[in-house]
């Protein structure tokens, strides 16, 4: 993919930690720079020219992002600082009590466990040994659930869940559905209408956008809910007697938002749409294929589905006899940057019966030869540790 020139930081080394956060292309940085240099003002407040320009650009950014996720109405998009905030906001808007049943899966990131654990009864759907949701267990656990919250793609296993089907099943049981799309939106086409979920959370910073960006898609049904963050921007009117909340999405965005971030977020979505999400996916599958091929001798133990169709462009693995931190440290000494540990998914590591794992996660700027490089060093690590 001819994008490497857009990422000067690639000269620092081979970056395989994209699931944690991605690099940002020049175009995104330029968009943010341009906004602050030429248009900066607060939105929705002033009637002066700069404020108007900023408001327009802010709204336009939502139009771009609604196109990116297939939402028909840009007003369904609420900006948050990351997927974690999005999931917390969804949990708040669902107005749960300790008696309510919420179904999650064994492959969650902590950000899709904790917002539910503190205010409801959580029931956990099991996964198969290959890391795929056990559909029979899903069927039985969603009975009587008020909410089903699940990842579109797992940040450890890479599993792409059949969220369209699972959402339909959950809705048939009368449950509301929340999708954690933090690990899917950067890598595959996400279509909120097709999925049919009530809420969908995305981290902008994992898809080429600046830090502090993310969104929560909120379905119309929840547009009248009481906001979580109360303050400026969330109301039409306040008197000493009453409060009249503003419409969506302002209602849910208390205070001055990250306007420059929003501009960058939209530019990142545009950048990805210019490449085409199908091409992003194809590229990542080719890297995955290379990884699996280079591992034919089973140098490392791989977690998650073996069918590449079922996984995103990341591989969690262990080099037998070597702790993941040692693997990551050694790779770092060779300028290859991967993640090690439990990736904010402690229950999943417990389920897999492993203390930790190493994770190489790919993106548009990674190359086949970088994957080969990784394996060369992994072989070296095996040698020196044996």
């Amino acid at each position, binding site marked *: 993919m001819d994008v490497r020139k857009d990422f000067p930081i690639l000269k620092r080394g081979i970056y395989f930690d994209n699931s944690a956060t991605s690099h940002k292309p020049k175009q995104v940085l330029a968009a943010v720079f341009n906004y602050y240099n030429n248009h900066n003002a607060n939105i929705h407040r002033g009637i002066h020219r700069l404020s108007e320009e900023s408001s327009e650009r802010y709204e336009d950014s939502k139009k771009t992002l609604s196109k990116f996720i297939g939402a028909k109405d840009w007003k369904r998009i609420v900006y948050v600082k990351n997927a974690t905030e999005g999931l917390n906001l969804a949990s708040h808007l669902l107005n749960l009590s300790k008696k309510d049943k919420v179904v999650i899966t064994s492959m969650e990131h902590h950000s899709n466990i904790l917002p539910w654990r503190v205010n409801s009864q959580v029931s956990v759907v099991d996964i198969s040994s290959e890391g795929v949701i056990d559909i029979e267990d899903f069927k039985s656990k969603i009975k009587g659930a008020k909410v089903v919250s699940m990842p579109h793609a797992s940040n450890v296993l890479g599993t792409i869940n059949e969220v369209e089907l699972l959402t339909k099943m959950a809705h048939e049981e009368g449950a509301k559905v929340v999708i954690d799309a933090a690990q899917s939106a950067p890598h595959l086409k996400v279509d909120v209408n097709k999925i049919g979920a009530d809420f969908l959370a995305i981290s902008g910073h994992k898809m080429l956008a600046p830090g502090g960006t993310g969104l929560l898609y909120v379905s119309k049904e929840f547009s009248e809910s009481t906001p979580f963050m109360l303050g400026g921007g969330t109301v039409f009117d306040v008197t000493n007697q009453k409060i009249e909340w503003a419409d969506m999405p302002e209602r849910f965005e208390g205070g001055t938002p990250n306007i420059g971030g929003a501009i960058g977020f939209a530019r990142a979505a545009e950048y990805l749409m210019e490449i085409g999400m199908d091409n992003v996916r194809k590229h990542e599958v080719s890297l995955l294929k290379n990884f699996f091929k280079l591992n034919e001798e089973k140098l490392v133990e791989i977690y998650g589905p073996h069918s590449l169709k079922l996984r995103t462009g990341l591989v969690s693995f262990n080099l037998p006899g070597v702790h993941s*931190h040692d693997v990551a*440290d050694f790779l770092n*000494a060779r300028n290859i940057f991967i993640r090690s540990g*439990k990736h904010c998914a402690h229950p999943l590591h417990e389920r897999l019966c492993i203390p930790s794992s190493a994770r190489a996660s790919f993106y548009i700027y990674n190359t086949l030869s970088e994957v080969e490089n990784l394996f060369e060093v992994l072989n070296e690590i095996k040698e*020196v540790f044996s």
Partner: protein
Amino acid sequence: MNLNKLLLIYKKAKSEMEERTHNKKIEGKNISCGDEVTLFLKIEEGILKDISFESSGCAVSISSAFLLAKQLKGKSIEEVKQLSNEEYLKLIDMEEISTSRRKCVLTPFITLRNNLD
């Protein structure tokens, strides 16, 4: 300490791991990476007469447990309680460890220090 030296110590540490006669056993964990360490102490009149250990974890934490056993054997409990993290790192020649690995090195030591009464 450079990587080659660390690897040598790690291999030695793995081969010398054992549970020797003790009158106190303490266990420690570094949750975030799954490191586990068990220290077997033989304490006589306030002195750490012997320290042996078992550990599963990364090369850094296992090496640290090994060096801890070597360096702190013979010291009094009072001396160990007075030892700061920095002093410990210096003692085992790991002051230059990267910030991200500090937890790995310190797990055995903090386990010991917090369990001496």
